[in-house]
């Protein structure tokens, strides 16, 4: 019989409770099954009421309610607590808040105390929550496939250390360590064992930037980029809004610099040179497709063009017309421009340094004296490590959240090197390819179960604290080191001590004692020390001229080249075993669950390829996607797929192209200059969520240019006035006493990063349907980002539009539901009572926005009929169901669902105000999509309140309703897009 639950009370079956009665509050080591240990944390962490449904025939279920024996004061059943923490997966570091409800972390929000991110997150950060409940995480320490205890591990290691041959190295391979405590711990560990060597390895290499800065500034650093200070940004294959360096922070800066609300009249201009259409490129005001092989030439040309303006020695480089124009523009924005490149090539990065220096951007948009501590991995050091391994100089290697076998196979060299290391230890929270070759697997907890700290920029400290007790028998890697070195205490104590000794000072704590300071720091999640000493870095120069003259002419010919890029959902592939991310469509191609070969329309037409044709690219078979805007002879494939050991979801999804990544000039190079592409004759059906890419001349996304906008703010949106005039109704409109909720989406701010989509899925228990269902257009996302191309297919303009339920005041869907399951609330919300819905799908047919989603199958296990789930990603497993938001009904098979404007959040905040006996404040209620948006593109509020932010935005001249000519009176309103270009500045 069915057992579905909405609140935590119903979660745990009686048998388990029975077993649990016998176990103590502490996790017992002896238990084998992960299911049992899962229960423990529930009890420990304020598991308020557990109840069991025991159904006998059709009798009423007996529900058990088990209170805590001793109830901690801060934990109230059914009330969520927020804990400040920090997300860091080896790429970006973002301070977060973890929403914990009845002992379960159920949502991640950005920490709005952080200036850099302003409380926003990305799709991957939102989704990382689900990795916590990943059933394929390594669950306990293993030695050669046999389970062992942590005591045995420690005994083995102590023996190993005691009997160590000092001529050999014990290598600890980590991603860039942001944690000062961990750095100190490793140093201490090295001090204890002299043979220990710590190496840094990043999944994606940025080592060329560091080397370029070392050459030009004398220090290997990555500066703080300030997109918000720039008036003109030129990107060369840098997907800084999607994947490059710090996308959340950059997206925020980018959007702030381009906003036209709140009286801002100026807008940053962004031009992008790139090979394939990236998220960033699709947002650019103008975009130039270039072959990856020609990037160095274009950068050199730009350097040369600027050098001639700056009056320094001009290298001999043929300067394309477009570069001259850009140089002109850049020159006029001297000191307020920014040029970046995403290519891991020292020459290019050096020239970029030179260009920014010529433009006097250093100090304003390129801040070198507050470098970010990300991506410290050095590819040269990695190569050296591999050769040391091969030579047998490494006695043991510990792969601490690193997966070099997957991320840098180096043509088999890595595998060979690993084979010659006698003892290999995998220390991961996720399954990895490298771990398969390891003798020991010592799983670490998920970051939501861990203690840690981090310093992203000197003086900005963050803390990571556990929001849940470890679900599996895991132990933090730091505690491994402490145990093996014989240090006392837990890692928590170590961090605290470090903070006491190194972070804490009187001015920072405003005269408070350390314990108080520690508690406030934990509460806030981050501490900023303004008075920290900044490093002094000065430009020392480099011979840019001779670098540039090496690329005097374009290189690309008629051969096909291949670019490997990170896409927005999957990134480097570390978090690949995540159903939310796999189901998230790529913001550009809107394809999910696979990678593919992007080819240019011209090439596709020439070779007769169409979407889905299988190509063999140097023996890797992948389907074709015709990507408008792609450079003509370039192919592009996303990294992060083709995992062979990642867990249930990601294993064998797509194809792995990391093997194509080779060292060039001592840095990993993410493109191949020449590849063979042959159609195999086979086809493959991709899971695409959008199959039609043109707006068909309909005024869906309305846009204008900045010049036009400044003349007439309503330009491009003239029809709004006209529709308002002609739209009349037979009926008088309903009155909305009190609130009328509304939303404004600024299309000019939205960059299409899709973070909102995952946030919405997490908040609203949106089911994951899997590849096959997406192929059949059965995806369930409540919120989608429509993407349309306009103009020339070789270099189209791209527009995006987030579309969710528009909550129309005269909603076509409401009229047609025969059972009144959907109607209008007294607060203007188009409400949907799932339990009343009988699934005629009439509302969906009659919705002009097609935002209603039907539960085609039993995706959630909430159906009455047994054994009929369609659950390719294991989302109905008890463990993964813990991520469900107890305040939102889990929808059964056969009902329609859709965006509710996060009504549970509205209700919650209203109730808080009522209980406090005060008026609800504007901005107090935030929808999940709004809260996570790095671009602040979404504003939610009460349109009945003339002073609310949303009301003010609705008075903007750019305001219009989607399909407003239908007179559906949507409560969601869009602000038209403005492009920063005009005829005088057009590049081509």
């Amino acid at each position: 019989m069915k057992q579905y639950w909405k609140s935590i009370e119903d979660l745990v079956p009686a048998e388990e409770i029975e077993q649990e009665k016998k176990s103590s509050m502490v996790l017992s080591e002896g238990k084998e099954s992960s299911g049992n240990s899962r229960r423990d944390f529930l009890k420990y962490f304020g598991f308020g009421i557990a109840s069991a449904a025991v159904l006998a025939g059709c009798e009423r279920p007996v529900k058990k309610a088990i209170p805590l024996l001793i109830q901690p004061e801060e934990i109230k059943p059914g009330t969520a607590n927020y804990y400040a923490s920090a997300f860091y997966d080896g790429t970006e570091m973002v301070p977060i808040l973890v929403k914990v409800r009845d002992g379960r972390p159920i949502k991640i929000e950005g920490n709005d105390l952080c200036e850099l991110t302003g409380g926003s997150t990305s799709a991957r950060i939102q989704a990382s929550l689900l990795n916590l409940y990943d059933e394929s995480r390594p669950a306990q320490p293993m030695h050669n496939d046999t389970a062992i205890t942590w005591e045995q591990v420690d005994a083995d290691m102590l023996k190993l250390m005691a009997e160590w041959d000092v001529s050999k190295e014990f290598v600890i391979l980590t991603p860039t360590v942001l944690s000062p405590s961990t750095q100190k711990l490793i140093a201490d560990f090295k001090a204890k064992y002299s043979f220990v060597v710590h190496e840094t390895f990043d999944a994606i290499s940025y080592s060329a930037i560091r080397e370029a800065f070392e050459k030009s500034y004398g220090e290997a650093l990555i500066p703080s980029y300030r997109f918000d200070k720039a008036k003109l940004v030129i990107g060369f294959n840098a997907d800084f809004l999607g994947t490059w360096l710090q996308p959340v922070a950059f997206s925020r800066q980018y959007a702030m610099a381009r906003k036209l609300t709140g009286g801002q009249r100026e807008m940053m201009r962004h031009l992008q040179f790139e090979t394939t259409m990236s998220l960033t490129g699709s947002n650019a005001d103008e975009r130039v497709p270039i072959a990856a092989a020609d990037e160095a030439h274009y950068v050199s040309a730009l350097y040369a063009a600027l050098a001639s303006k700056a009056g320094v020695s001009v290298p001999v480089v043929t300067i394309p017309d477009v570069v001259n124009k850009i140089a002109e523009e850049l020159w006029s924005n001297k000191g307020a421009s920014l040029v970046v490149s995403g290519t891991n090539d020292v020459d290019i990065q050096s020239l970029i340094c030179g260009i920014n220096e010529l433009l006097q951007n250093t100090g304003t948009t390129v801040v070198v004296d507050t470098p970010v501590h990300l991506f410290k991995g050095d590819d040269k050091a990695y190569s050296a490590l591999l050769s040391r391994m091969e030579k047998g100089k490494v006695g043991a290697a510990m792969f601490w959240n690193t997966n070099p076998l997957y991320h840098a196979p180096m043509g088999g060299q890595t595998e060979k090197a690993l084979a010659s290391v006698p003892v290999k230890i995998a220390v991961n929270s996720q399954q990895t390819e490298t771990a398969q070759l390891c003798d020991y697997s010592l799983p670490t907890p998920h970051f939501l179960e861990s203690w840690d700290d981090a310093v992203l920029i000197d003086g900005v400290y963050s803390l990571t604290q556990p929001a849940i007790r470890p679900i599996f028998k895991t132990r933090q890697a730091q505690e491994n080191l402490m145990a093996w070195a014989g240090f006392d205490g837990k890692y928590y104590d170590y961090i605290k001590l470090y903070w006491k000794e190194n972070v804490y000072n009187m001015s920072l704590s405003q005269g408070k004692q350390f314990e108080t300071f520690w508690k406030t720091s934990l509460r806030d999640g981050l501490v900023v020390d303004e008075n920290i000493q900044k490093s002094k870095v000065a430009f020392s120069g480099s011979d840019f001229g001779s670098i540039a003259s090496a690329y005097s002419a374009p290189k690309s010919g008629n051969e096909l080249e291949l670019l490997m890029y990170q896409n927005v959902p999957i990134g480097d592939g570390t978090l690949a075993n995540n159903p939310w991310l796999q189901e998230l469509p790529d913001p550009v191609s809107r394809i999910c669950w696979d990678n593919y070969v992007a080819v240019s329309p011209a090439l596709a037409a020439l070779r007769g390829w169409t979407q889905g044709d299988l190509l063999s690219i140097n023996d890797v078979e992948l389907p074709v996607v015709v990507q408008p805007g792609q450079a003509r002879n370039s192919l592009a494939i996303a990294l992060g797929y083709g995992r062979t050991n990642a867990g249930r979801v990601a294993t064998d999804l797509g194809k792995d192209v990391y093997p194509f990544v080779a060292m060039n000039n001592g840095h990993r190079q993410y493109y191949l200059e020449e590849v063979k592409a042959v159609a195999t004759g086979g086809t493959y059906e991709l899971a695409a969520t959008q199959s039609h890419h043109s707006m068909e001349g309909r005024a869906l996304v309305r846009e204008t240019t900045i010049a036009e906008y400044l003349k007439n703010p309503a330009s491009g949106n003239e029809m709004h006035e006209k529709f308002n005039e002609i739209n009349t109704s037979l009926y008088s409109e309903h009155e909305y006493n009190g609130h009328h909720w509304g939303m404004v989406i600024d299309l000019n701010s939205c960059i299409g990063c899709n973070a909102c989509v995952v946030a919405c899925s997490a908040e609203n228990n949106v089911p994951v349907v899997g590849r096959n269902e997406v192929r059949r257009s059965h995806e369930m996302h409540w919120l989608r980002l429509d993407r349309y191309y306009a103009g020339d297919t070789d270099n189209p303009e791209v527009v995006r539009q987030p579309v969710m339920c528009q909550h129309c005041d005269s909603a076509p869907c409401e009229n047609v539901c025969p059972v009144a399951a959907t109607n209008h609330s007294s607060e203007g919300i188009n409400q949907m009572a799932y339990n009343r819905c009988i699934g005629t799908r009439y509302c969906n047919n009659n919705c002009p926005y097609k935002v209603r989603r039907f539960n085609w199958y039993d995706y959630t296990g909430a159906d009455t009929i047994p054994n009929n789930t369609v659950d390719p990603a294991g989302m109905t497993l008890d463990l993964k169901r813990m991520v469900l938001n107890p305040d939102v009904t889990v929808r059964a098979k056969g009902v329609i669902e859709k965006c509710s404007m996060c009504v549970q959040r509205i209700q919650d905040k209203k109730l808080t105000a009522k209980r406090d006996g005060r008026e609800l404040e504007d901005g107090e209620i935030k929808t999940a999509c709004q809260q996570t948006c790095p671009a602040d593109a979404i504003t939610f509020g009460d349109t009945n309140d003339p002073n609310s932010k949303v009301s003010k935005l609705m008075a903007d001249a750019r305001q219009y309703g989607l399909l407003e000519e239908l007179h559906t009176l949507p409560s969601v309103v869009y602000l038209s897009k403005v492009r920063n270009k005009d005829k005088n500045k057009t590049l081509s």
Partner: protein
Amino acid sequence: MIKTLSRSQTSGKLFLKFFLLFFLLFQVLNVGAKDNRGKKGAPEPDLKVGERLYYGLISMGEEANACASCHTYYTADTINWNPSALEMAVVASEMDLATFKSHLLEPSGGVREKVHANYSLSDEQLFHLHGYLKELAVDGVPEKALSINTILIFLLLGVAMAIALVDLFFTKKIPYKVIHILIILFGLSYQGKVVAHQMIDLGRSHEYMPDQPIKFSHQVHAGDNKIDCMYCHSNAEHGKSAGIPSAGLCMNCHMVVRNGTNSGQFEIAKVVDAYENNKDIEWVRIHNLPDHVYFNHSQHVNAGQLDCAECHGKVEEMHILKQENDLSMGWCLDCHKTTNVNFLGNDYYKVYEQLHKDIEAGVRDSIKAADIGANDCMKCHH
């Protein structure tokens, strides 16, 4: 009022007991036949005899009550402060025969001493009884027999109607068609009533009154001792669920109070045991809403300033807690339509400008919950 109610319930209970006894007698005979074939050698307790003793079918002495009359199988309907059969069995199974005997025949203290005084049991009988209790402790209490009367009547009426129909059209044995029609009309209306009631009760648990692991009496706590509801269910003020107090909270009083008004030490000892030995107490939830309903106590108790009794009834008069209202959607809606909102006393409601004007103008004299959207679907279904 309450007395008459309980009396009628008692008589119903009496009937049920007779029925049960009869039924069990039959069962006992059967069970005995099966379980009698013990191994030779080591003496095996005769479970049949043990069970008969427990039910008092074999005399245990003059004026000696059957075990089952005090230590009942089920506690619901009327409160019985004595330990239940299962609890007795668990205690007994942990004793050896001698201790069992001394506990049974020579108890010390209180009511037990008086009641148990008249028992005279042979050692053999004790052995059987002990054996039965041990078995019971393992197997648990047999399931309650379901009432089949309604189903039977329903089916019989169906047959009668079918016969009437056949006779009406074909056999024509009964000369007066009125009889056919009456049978069919009565049958249809009765069946309709049964079906309607069953459908209404589907997923409902009006008057639900399950056994609890501890015979906790709200009458004793909230009634006699006038403990405020919010003392134990403090979460109702600020949370979604009212919460069940932790054993730790119980111990605030029961550190001292170890002797119950009605139950002696036995029931309170369970709380103490749970608290001291880290055991969970598995209360049975009484007020259950379907999963698709969101209900927030603090909305009603704190913001709405409702009295607990409006939904939960006179809990202070209930030894065994039962569900007072059917918690149906119609019940919720009706209350929302008639309950006044503290409109002028809470600043939150300032947002309803028009309604405030209406009140000032005298167009309205009060604002009901439904007037400000309490009956919107998504207030409870999200």
